[in-house]
C-alpha cells in the first residue's frame, strides 16, 4: 500500500470538435487504375454496338405499340359480345347469367325468371324447370331438398351422417343409434351377418340361421297375434350340453308333440324316457321311475313293480308298497291301509299277563259323530259314525295311549282301533277270571 498521497487522475475525454480536422484518405490503387484504362478504338466499337442495340429496341417498341392497339380493339369487341347489358353475360352457347341485386341466375332461354334456370341468392341455391324448384339448398340451414331421386352407379364421398343417428360410412357400414324402422322391408336375398354365421332373409322371410349360436336374449311374439314356427327337415328344438345333444322337442306329424331324452326319439316308448302329448291323451315312458315332485320323497310310480309309493306320507294316510309285499291300511274315514302282523316282522315278543285292564276298558267312552265337512269328500255321504275320541283314550293311559297316533307335534291325531282289541281281550280275560272265581265260591 503506497504511503504517499494518491493522485486523482480524472481523464478528459477527447471528442471531435471544430478544433480538429479529420481527413480520411484511401490509398491509391495503381493496379486498379490500369484495369480501368480503355483505348479509343474499343470505346468507339462499344458506342457503335450500343447505337445498333438502341435502333433494334426502337423497332421492337413500335411493333409492340401496334400489337397493343389491336389487342385493345379486340378486347372492346369481345366485351360487347359477352355483355349485352350491364348485368348480363352471354357465353358461347347463348346461356346467360343475370346478375341482379338479389343474386345470380344462370338460365338458358329468353327469361331469367321462367324456364330452366339455377338461382343463387340469399336463400341459397335452387334449380327450376318451368315450374317449382326441383332441388334447393338452404343458405341458412343447409337443408337440401331433391324432388327426384339420388341415383348413380356410384355415389362417392365420405360418410353420410343423419343427425348422428344413422351413419353410413365409406365402407358401407351402417350404424343406427336408437333407430326405428317403420313400414316394410322387402328383401330378396342377403344376410344379416355373414353367409355362414348370420340370419338369411329372402322372399320367404327369415329362412335360416347359420352355424352360429344365439346367445342370450329372448324371442318374443305378440300374445295371441302370431306364433313362432319351426319349419325344416328336422323341425325340432334340440338341446345340447356342449356338443352333445341331450334332448329334443319335436312334433309327431298329426299325433302331437314328443319330448324326449337323448339324441334319438322313440315314439313307441321304451328306449329313452320321453313324454308324449297327443290329441287323445298323454303318456309318459320311462325305464325306471316316473316322479312327481322329488322322486324319493314325493309321489312316485315304480315302472318296474307297478306300485305306488307314498313314502313320506305315513302308512295310515296313504298307500305304500313294501319290499315285494303289498299291503293296505285303512286309517280314518274308511280309508284303507295294509299293516303287517306276521311274526316274521316282529322281535322281542312278550305276552301280557298283567291285570287292571278291565278298569281301563270300563273308562273307554264310545261316541257317535259326524266328520266335519271340511274333511269330507265332495259327493260322498257324511253319515253318523261310531267310535272313540283319540284324546279320551290317550288320557286313560296305562298303555292305552299306544293305540293313539300322534301328529308331529305330539298331539293325538288318530286311533288304531285294531290295537284296541288287545286291551279289550285283556279286559275280557280279566272279567272271565272274576266270573270263574265267583263260580268257585
Amino acid at each position, binding site marked *: *500500500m*503506497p*504511503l*504517499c*498521497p*494518491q*493522485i486523482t*487522475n*480524472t*481523464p*478528459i*475525454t*477527447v*471528442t*471531435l470538435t*471544430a*478544433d*480538429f*480536422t*479529420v*481527413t*480520411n*484518405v*484511401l*490509398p491509391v*490503387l495503381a493496379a486498379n487504375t490500369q484495369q480501368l484504362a480503355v483505348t479509343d478504338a474499343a470505346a468507339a466499337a462499344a458506342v457503335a454496338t450500343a447505337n445498333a442495340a438502341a435502333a433494334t429496341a426502337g423497332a421492337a417498341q413500335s411493333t409492340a405499340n401496334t400489337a397493343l392497339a389491336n389487342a385493345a380493339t379486340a378486347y372492346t369487341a369481345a366485351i360487347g359480345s359477352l355483355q349485352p347489358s350491364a348485368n348480363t353475360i352471354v357465353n358461347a352457347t347463348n346461356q346467360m347469367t343475370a346478375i341482379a341485386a338479389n343474386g345470380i341466375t344462370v338460365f338458358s332461354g329468353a327469361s331469367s325468371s321462367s324456364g330452366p334456370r339455377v338461382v343463387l341468392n340469399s336463400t341459397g341455391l335452387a334449380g327450376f324447370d318451368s315450374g317449382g324448384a326441383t332441388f334447393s339448398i338452404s343458405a341458412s340451414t343447409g337443408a337440401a331438398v331433391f324432388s327426384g331421386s339420388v341415383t348413380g352407379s356410384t355415389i362417392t364421398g365420405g360418410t353420410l351422417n343423419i343427425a348422428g343417428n344413422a351413419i353410413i360410412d365409406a365402407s358401407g357400414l351402417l350404424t343406427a343409434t336408437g333407430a326405428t324402422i317403420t313400414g316394410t322391408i322387402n328383401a330378396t336375398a342377403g344376410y344379416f351377418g355373414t353367409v355362414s354365421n348370420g340370419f338369411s332373409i329372402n322372399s320367404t322371410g327369415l329362412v335360416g340361421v347359420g352355424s352360429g349360436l344365439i346367445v342370450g336374449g329372448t324371442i318374443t311374439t305378440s300374445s295371441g297375434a302370431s306364433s313362432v314356427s319351426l319349419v325344416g327337415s328336422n323341425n325340432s328344438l334340440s338341446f345340447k350340453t356342449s356338443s352333445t345333444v341331450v334332448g329334443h322337442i319335436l312334433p309327431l306329424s298329426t299325433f302331437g308333440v314328443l319330448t324326449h331324452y337323448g339324441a334319438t326319439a322313440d315314439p313307441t316308448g321304451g328306449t329313452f324316457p320321453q313324454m308324449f302329448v297327443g290329441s287323445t291323451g298323454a303318456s309318459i315312458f320311462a325305464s325306471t321311475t316316473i316322479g312327481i315332485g322329488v322322486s324319493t320323497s314325493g309321489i312316485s310310480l315304480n315302472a318296474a313293480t307297478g306300485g305306488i309309493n307314498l313314502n313320506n306320507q305315513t302308512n295310515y294316510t296313504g298307500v305304500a308298497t313294501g319290499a315285494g309285499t303289498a299291503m293296505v291300511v285303512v286309517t280314518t274315514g274308511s280309508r284303507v291301509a295294509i299293516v303287517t302282523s306276521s311274526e316274521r316282522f316282529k322281535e322281542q315278543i312278550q305276552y301280557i299277563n298283567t291285570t287292571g285292564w278291565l278298569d281301563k276298558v270300563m273308562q273307554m267312552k264310545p261316541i257317535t259323530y259326524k266328520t266335519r265337512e271340511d274333511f269330507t269328500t265332495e259327493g260322498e255321504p257324511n253319515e253318523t259314525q261310531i267310535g272313540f275320541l283319540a284324546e279320551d283314550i290317550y288320557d286313560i293311559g296305562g298303555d292305552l295311549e299306544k293305540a293313539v297316533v300322534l301328529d308331529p307335534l305330539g298331539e293325538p291325531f288318530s286311533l288304531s282301533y285294531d290295537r284296541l282289541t288287545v286291551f279289550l281281550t285283556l279286559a275280557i280275560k280279566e272279567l272271565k277270571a272274576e266270573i270263574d272265581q265267583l263260580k268257585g265260591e
Partner: protein
Amino acid sequence: MTAFDGVTSPAVTVQFLMSGSFVTVATTDVISINIRRGRTRQSERDQCGTADIILNNFSGTYNPDATSGTYVVGGVSILRDGLQMRIVATIGGVAYNLYYGFLEITRVDQGEAPSVTMTFVDGIAYIADAQAPALAAAANAETAATRVGRMLDIVGWPSGASRSLTGSVGMLATVQNRSCMAMIYQAVDAIAGRFYISRDNVATLVPLANKFSRPTQLLFTDTGASNTVGYMELFTNPGTYYVVNQAVVDRGNANNQYTSRYNPSVSSYGIAKAVFDAPVATNSNAENLALYESRKLADPLTYVERIDFNALALGDYGALYPDFLATELGDQVSVVRSGVQYNLVVEGMAFVIVQNNWMMSYTTSAINPYSITI
C-alpha cells in the same frame, strides 16, 4: 552487498537458475548491479531491459570456461548465453524481484583485480529476434491482446501466468512479414497502450485506460517531510520539444488512413506530425485513435523528465521500501518542488547498486489527462 541488512534496508541478491532452481550468488562476490528498464519518454517504445552484473572473479568461479566449481554441471559451466538470472530485494521477509533476464554477453577481466561483467537482457530481446509469418484472414478482427498472444506463441513464450495481456481493440490481419516485435508494436499503437516485460518476467500489455488506474507509489519532496523521498537531481524538459498535434493512423496498404489535426496547437506551434502503424479493424477505431494521438501532446508542458535519488534515503527506517520495491513501469510518482506538484508516470527506471550505495533514476512523463474510447 553486506551493507543491505534486509531490515532497515533491503538485502539485494543475484540468483542464477541452476538445474531448475535459483541459487544465490555469494554477495561478497557482487561488485555492482546496473539495471535499466522501460523507456525515456512516452513517445518512445519500451526498450529491451538490461542488467550488468560485475562479479569478483578472483577465484575463477565465474569464468564461463571453468570445468569445475560452483556453477559447473556435468563438466560445463552454466554461465553461458541464455542463463536465467533474477535480482531480488528482500525486506521484512518479503522478496521483490527487481529484474529478470537472460545472459547475453560475458566479459572476463583477467587483470590485477579479476572480474566478470555479465549483461542480462530481458524477454523483449528474444521476442525481437523472431520473425512473424503473414497472418491468414482468420486473424482478422482479433483483439490486440490476442494478436500479442499470437506473437508470444511464435517465439515460444510461456503461457499462463507468464502473460498479462489486455487490449480489446480489433486488429486487421496483415499480409506483411514482419518481426514479432513489430507486430506487437502495431497492437500497442492500436490501443495507445504499452508493452513491457515486468520485473517478474511477465509479458505485459496494458491499454490506454491503464494509465489512469495505476497507484502513486512515491512522493518526492525537498522538505524532508515524513514518508517522502528526498531527490538528488530533477531534470525538466521544455514541452515544446515533444509536441504532437497531427496524427496519422495508417491501417495498411489497402485500408483508409486517418489524419487528425488539432488546429489550436498547429496555429501556435506549426504542424508536429506523428505516424502510427496501427492496422485497427474499423474506420471508427482509426478515427478515434488519430483524434487521441493528435491531442494528448498538443499542449507543450514543461515537466520532470528524470528524478535521481538514493534508495538508501527512503524515509525513516525503510518504511517506504515496500512501495519503492513494488514500483513497476507505468506506476505513478509525484514530485513537489518549491510548492509545485508534478504528477508523473514512471516511464523507465535505472538501478546502480554497489556495496554501500544504491542510486536510482526514474525517467518520467507528465500525466496528460486526455483519454478516449478507441
